[in-house]
């Protein structure tokens, strides 16, 4: 179940109506969905949002199994806290387990709420990163007014991310070809740990050295510390506005319905 960064990037270069939306719009859309998800406490609203994300996903032609795999990959930590809720929340006791553990009704409700929120948020993020290439996410952040210096650091990081994943892969392949295995008990633990530390040290060193080289080559091209870089102009189309309006309608109407107590 190991999905590499290359695979994520490949998916984001596919062609569909969702892929062709402006990156700024997709970013705003994701933030809207997530903020509303964190705000709401209503299961119906969460279900509605999840259905909406899944419809967008189907329109984007991303394979469902890839989508589910990616969500499963990042679920554990949050899922852990959610699963614990029935045991730690006080309330109407439904079951009593050995060791003084109790399962409460409020706890189950709250745990399910946290879990559903987590699923909707992760779905939104996975959708965003599956339909938008990394560098256009970062560029759109700058266009939306992210501080210049941070935006420059971000866009350079994104460019070199792939270089370092390749470096890591190379180091690991060469270690593997010499029969190195982190989990193997045939060599002492301290020796194995040292090898890992050397791998990390090499990555560190390589990033330092790469940083120097890149700086000198930037200097040779008249870089003076000012972060000016090429911004691709892309007008926002009607369909872009359309999808934002649609999302806002969904959010506001579900909020109004909830407020009036229909659900």
């Amino acid at each position, binding site marked *: 179940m190991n999905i590499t960064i290359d695979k*994520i990037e490949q998916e984001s270069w596919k062609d569909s109506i969702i892929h062709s939306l402006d990156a700024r719009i997709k970013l705003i859309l*994701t933030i809207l969905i*997530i*903020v509303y998800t*964190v*705000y709401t406490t209503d299961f119906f609203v969460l279900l509605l949002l999840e259905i909406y994300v899944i419809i967008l996903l189907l329109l984007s032609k991303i394979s469902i199994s890839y989508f589910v795999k*990616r*969500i499963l990959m*990042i679920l554990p*930590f*949050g899922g852990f*806290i959610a699963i*614990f809720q029935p045991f*730690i929340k006080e309330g109407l006791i439904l079951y009593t387990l050995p060791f003084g553990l109790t399962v409460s009704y409020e706890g189950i409700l709250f745990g399910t709420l*946290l879990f559903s*929120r*987590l699923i*909707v*948020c*992760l779905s939104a*993020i996975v959708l965003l*990163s599956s339909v938008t290439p*990394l560098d256009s*996410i970062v560029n759109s952040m700058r266009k939306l007014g992210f501080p210049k*210096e*941070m935006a*420059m*650091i*971000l866009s*350079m*990081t*994104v*460019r*070199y*991310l792939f*270089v*370092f*994943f390749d470096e*890591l892969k190379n180091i690991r392949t060469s270690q593997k070809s010499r029969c190195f295995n*982190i989990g193997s008990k045939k060599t002492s*633990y301290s020796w194995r*740990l040292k090898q*890992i*530390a*050397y791998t*990390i*040290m090499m*990555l*560190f*060193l*390589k*990033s*330092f050295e790469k*940083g120097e080289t*890149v*700086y000198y080559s*930037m200097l040779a091209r008249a*870089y*003076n*510390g000012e972060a000016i870089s090429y911004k691709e102009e892309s007008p926002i189309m009607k369909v872009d506005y359309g999808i934002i309006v649609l999302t806002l309608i969904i959010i506001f109407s579900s909020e109004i319905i909830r407020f009036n107590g229909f659900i």
Partner: protein
Amino acid sequence: MHIPDGFIPLWQCIIYYIIVIIVGYFAVKWAKENLHEKQIPLLAILAAGIFAIQVLNIPTPLGASGHMVGAALVAILLGSPFAGFLVLAVVLIIQGLVFGDGGITALGINIFNMGVLGSSIGFYSFKGLKSIIKDIPAVFIGSFLSLLIPALIIAIELWVAGRFPLKEGLFLMSTYHIIIGLVVEGLISTIVYTSLKKIRPDLLSGVVNNG
């Protein structure tokens, strides 16, 4: 260690965001004033390196496995907690937006825990201990604390958010992170530091100048 979206109430997320934005303002100001402009590309590429380093999952003798955060090490090597903050902030933004590791509303709290607390605890404990004991044990203790203390603070934050009881949270977070902190963050940072000192002592200029 990444808190996902939906676990911290929105109003608390905003507080963490405000803290991070204030620290971010000073960090960018620091980068402009104290660093040769060289460090801006360096920080960016270091962030890419740290990103790759965080992918490496390292088993510990007791079964649990974890990855390095690297905040303390960057802060120590570049001679300022702001450097650690900037690098970690970039890494966490990308992790949150692309991998869903962490989240968008929880981005503030995650940068606060690892970027602000991790790098400043690591850096200042290294700085304080360096004069008392030698630099190598200081790196070990600094990077160990840079993982353990934020982990305990996460337990407190989850308690404040009403998501996990304090006592159990502190117990679970400390037992797990003492092991990861000692073996992964502590030992590995120390080995990286010692070997970098041997191979490229010039890179450790930050330690000499500011440390």
